[in-house]
């Protein structure tokens, strides 16, 4: 598939999620971006920090809000070979959360390691 697009360039992409879901559309539309990126056979990383950690909080129920609950899509990412999910430890702690509160398997890393990881990327898209 790589060859279809550009002769096999594989870049390290990171999608950085910093915002809570539902209050704004960024979480949902970043997820749409991530799904599309799967078709391009790039080296895709997802990072959740700051309020972005709430995007993958277990037990989301939007019935009373009228919004679509798009959180099950995070669990479907594996099927698209998107498996590099990183969550920032400090962001979880500030919000009283732990990895057990999250709906997907992630690697919990420190802020310092998150900063290092960002430095290894070719393309960073933050919302």
């Amino acid at each position, binding site marked *: 598939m790589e060859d279809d697009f550009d002769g096999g360039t594989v870049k390290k992409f990171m999608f950085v999620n910093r915002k809570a879901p*539902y*209050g*704004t*559309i960024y979480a949902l539309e970043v997820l749409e971006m991530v799904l599309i990126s799967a078709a391009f056979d790039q080296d895709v990383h997802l990072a959740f920090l700051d309020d972005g950690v709430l995007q993958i909080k277990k037990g989301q129920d939007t019935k009373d*809000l*009228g*919004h*679509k609950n798009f959180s099950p899509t995070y669990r479907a990412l594996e099927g698209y070979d998107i498996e590099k999910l990183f969550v920032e430890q400090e962001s979880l702690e500030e919000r009283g959360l732990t990895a057990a509160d999250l709906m997907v398997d992630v690697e919990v890393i420190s802020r310092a390691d998150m900063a290092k990881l960002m430095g290894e990327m070719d393309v960073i898209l933050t919302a």
Partner: protein
Amino acid sequence: MKFGILVNEGPYNHQASDSAYQFAKAAIEKGHEVYRVFFYYDGVLNATRFSEPPTDDRNVVKNWQKLAEDHKVDLVVCVAAGLRRGIVESSLAPGFRISGLGQLIEAGIQADRLIAFGD
């Protein structure tokens, strides 16, 4: 009691218009009157006739239109804010009307409470 409602942000990108709609619906259900919903700043974008959201999501523009139809709520779009952002008569959805910013101040005077939803 008479409520005036101000909506400051466009549909989908922010939850503001959803919250404003839910507030308006709840107020009417409790027997209050919604004197006017005024759309200002990017709020004017709630009145686009061209929005076609995915069928499995809510339709914000239609929600407002239905509220206006069912309860004769006055949906007013600010003319100046609309001109900047491309909400004019030819892009306006039925159920909304375009008028001046004075309609917001008037709502502040006439309504018992004016409540704003935004970013």
